[in-house]
């Protein structure tokens, strides 16, 4: 068993599709299901799943890509710090091309600022230890999945007295925007809950969503058979009028989640209100570095102030992140905005909805 081929079996897929059709037929009205994870967005496009699901099931993408939901002001702040003397910015690669108001980290690197791509926040600590006269700032972007690794970096810096290291924190939590989206214009019949985030927060993490909004939630793996089965479980809930947290990805996700990672989050961070691109401010949906570790908080260390950020008014990223529009509804898509020269964040990240459409979608041939 290699955990890949088994979950891509065409015969089993056919059977799951038949079951899904029966279940969707029982509902007999349009069903809107939202995935809130960029890896699901990519997998749905890559395996041609939209084409396989019954016609009355509409799959929409939500705010599941951490790069996409990071507000422009954050990029502006990172650039402002990058331009200061003797600073090395360390970041995940996806952040490099995200446009700020006037520039991007990639453009800044081209102009001579020291911006380095790392694969783990712990690599940033190593850079700090090797460059003792410089200030090393890690851009802490992500959800409950990457937030614990930034926490480990902060604890490592504390333990090893790495004084020239700090984190510009913008990590976010998933359940809160799921609750917030239920009050929006789009009627959502069920959530395909993220696989990796759920590994950390467990089934328990979605109880508030179900309790407050009575919407079916199914934790779903990233392989195509996982997704088909997750869709069927959601459709069954809709058909039977249930709203529960169910776990399709039980080979990884436990009811209580990863306690060790949760402890790290609780030790190093406090919950805070956070601004989401496209969604605005959502109460209690972000992590901030707790007072005990505030010496590692880059926002405090550098006291950044940036002017009011500006976005291209034609870009519909915000509506895409709320599931209201598709990439093809955007006048900029594949014209002024493509992965080489992205205008909106949904095009930058490899897991953004526009990037998925650009890579795997039918846009090039729509008029054929």
């Amino acid at each position, binding site marked *: 068993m290699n955990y890949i081929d088994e979950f891509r079996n*065409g015969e089993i*897929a*056919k059977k799951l599709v038949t079951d899904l059709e029966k279940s969707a037929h029982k509902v007999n009205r349009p069903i809107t299901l939202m995935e809130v994870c960029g890896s699901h967005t990519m997998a749905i496009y890559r*395996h041609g799943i*939209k*084409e*396989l699901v019954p016609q009355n099931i509409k799959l929409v993408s939500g705010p599941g890509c951490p790069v996409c939901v990071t507000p422009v002001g954050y990029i502006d702040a990172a650039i402002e710090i990058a331009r200061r003397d003797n600073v090395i910015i360390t970041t995940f690669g996806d952040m490099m091309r995200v446009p700020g108001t006037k520039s991007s980290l990639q453009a800044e690197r081209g102009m001579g600022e020291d911006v380095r791509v790392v694969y783990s926040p712990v690599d940033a600590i190593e850079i700090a230890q090797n460059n003792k006269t410089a200030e090393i700032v890690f851009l802490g*972007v992500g959800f409950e999945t990457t937030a614990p690794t930034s926490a480990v970096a902060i604890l490592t810096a504390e333990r090893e007295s790495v004084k020239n290291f700090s984190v510009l924190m913008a990590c976010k939590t998933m359940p809160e925007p799921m609750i917030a989206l239920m009050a929006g214009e789009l009627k959502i019949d069920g959530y395909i809950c993220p696989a990796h985030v759920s590994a950390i927060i467990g089934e328990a993490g979605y109880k508030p969503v179900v309790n407050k909004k009575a919407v079916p939630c199914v934790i779903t793996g990233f392989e195509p058979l996982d997704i088909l089965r997750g869709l069927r479980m959601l459709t069954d809930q809709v058909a039977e009028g249930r709203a529960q947290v169910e776990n399709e990805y039980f080979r990884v996700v436990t009811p209580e989640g990863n306690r060790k990672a949760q402890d790290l989050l609780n030790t190093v961070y406090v919950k805070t209100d956070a601004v989401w691109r496209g969604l605005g401010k959502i109460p209690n949906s972000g992590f901030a570095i707790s007072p005990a570790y505030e010496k590692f908080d880059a926002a405090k260390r550098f006291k950044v102030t940036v002017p009011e950020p500006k976005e291209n008014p034609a870009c519909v990223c915000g509506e895409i992140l709320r599931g209201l529009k598709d990439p093809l509804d955007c006048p900029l898509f594949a014209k002024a905005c493509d992965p080489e020269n992205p205008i909106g964040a949904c095009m930058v990240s*490899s897991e953004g909805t526009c990037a998925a459409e650009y890579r795997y979608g039918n846009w090039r041939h729509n008029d054929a």
Partner: protein
Amino acid sequence: MTHDGIITLGHGAGGQMTGDLIDNIIIPILHRNSNSQELEDSVKIDMPEGDLYFTTDSYVVDPFIFPGGNIGHLCVHGTVNDLAMSGAKPVAISLGFILEEGLLIDDLKTVLRSIHDAARDANVLIACGDTKVVPRGKGDKIFINTSGIGVTRKALSIKGSGARPHDKILLSGTIGDHGVAVMSAREGLSFNSSIKSDTAALNGIVEVLLDANITIHTMRDPTRGGLATTMMEIAESSGVEIRLDERAIPVSKEVNGACEILGLDPMHIANEGKMVAFIPPDDAERALSIMRSHPLGDSAAIIGEVHQGRAGCVTVTSFIGGARIINKLPGELLPRIC
């Protein structure tokens, strides 16, 4: 300064040190596959009869030594393959080095030995060369440019625009090996794997196909941008639709696993020793068995076919029977963050 073991600016200055580098390091390693005894400003090549083909490419791979090979193999294989994909038999290549001050001479020797071996195995002459040295920080250890000339048999026209409806698409082996091997060796990306670059010269396998009188409409080696980008280019320039079957495309378990971890699609990853051939249906099965009997083609497969359909469109039937469109690789491959 050769005894210090590193390249210095003096090695590129054209004087005594340059002469020493050529006489003591480069020629002794390359001599059996070059005409380096005659160090003239330009060189006369005895060309066999046929249409002349000319190509050039630059190699800047980082790191320059990776699992399964190094930049020396690449710079010979890449240029040989560009000629071979037009059906041309490679005759001679040039070798232009841009070395960064501080490069270890031992590393240069490793690269030179690989160039020698690759040229010998591909049966191509290293006809001329040049060496420049740039100050530390102005280059990245070693860059190489190679240009190559070759000749085709008479009346042969194999072009990217040659694919025709009903053609079968043959792929000579597994995809993604080179790109993943290089990524696995990159600083900061700490995953260990047994994946090796597939870097290889394809002129041998092409010769065998041509010797067997297989009709070939189009050939390409899917290098940067991977199989997906190559297919898009052919669909566009031939004005046809290409339909692939993901289940038929060979990918090794290791590459598949690495791609899952890094969030990459094997179809977008570079290869350096694989080819696709567009072959009319009558010749396809015979071509497949010829490919499979060649050491570089033992996992060859028919991965799809050409349709009249929508010009410039490439569709893939996925493992689970869904269909997707594929597009060219947009921008740089970046590992995902969650």
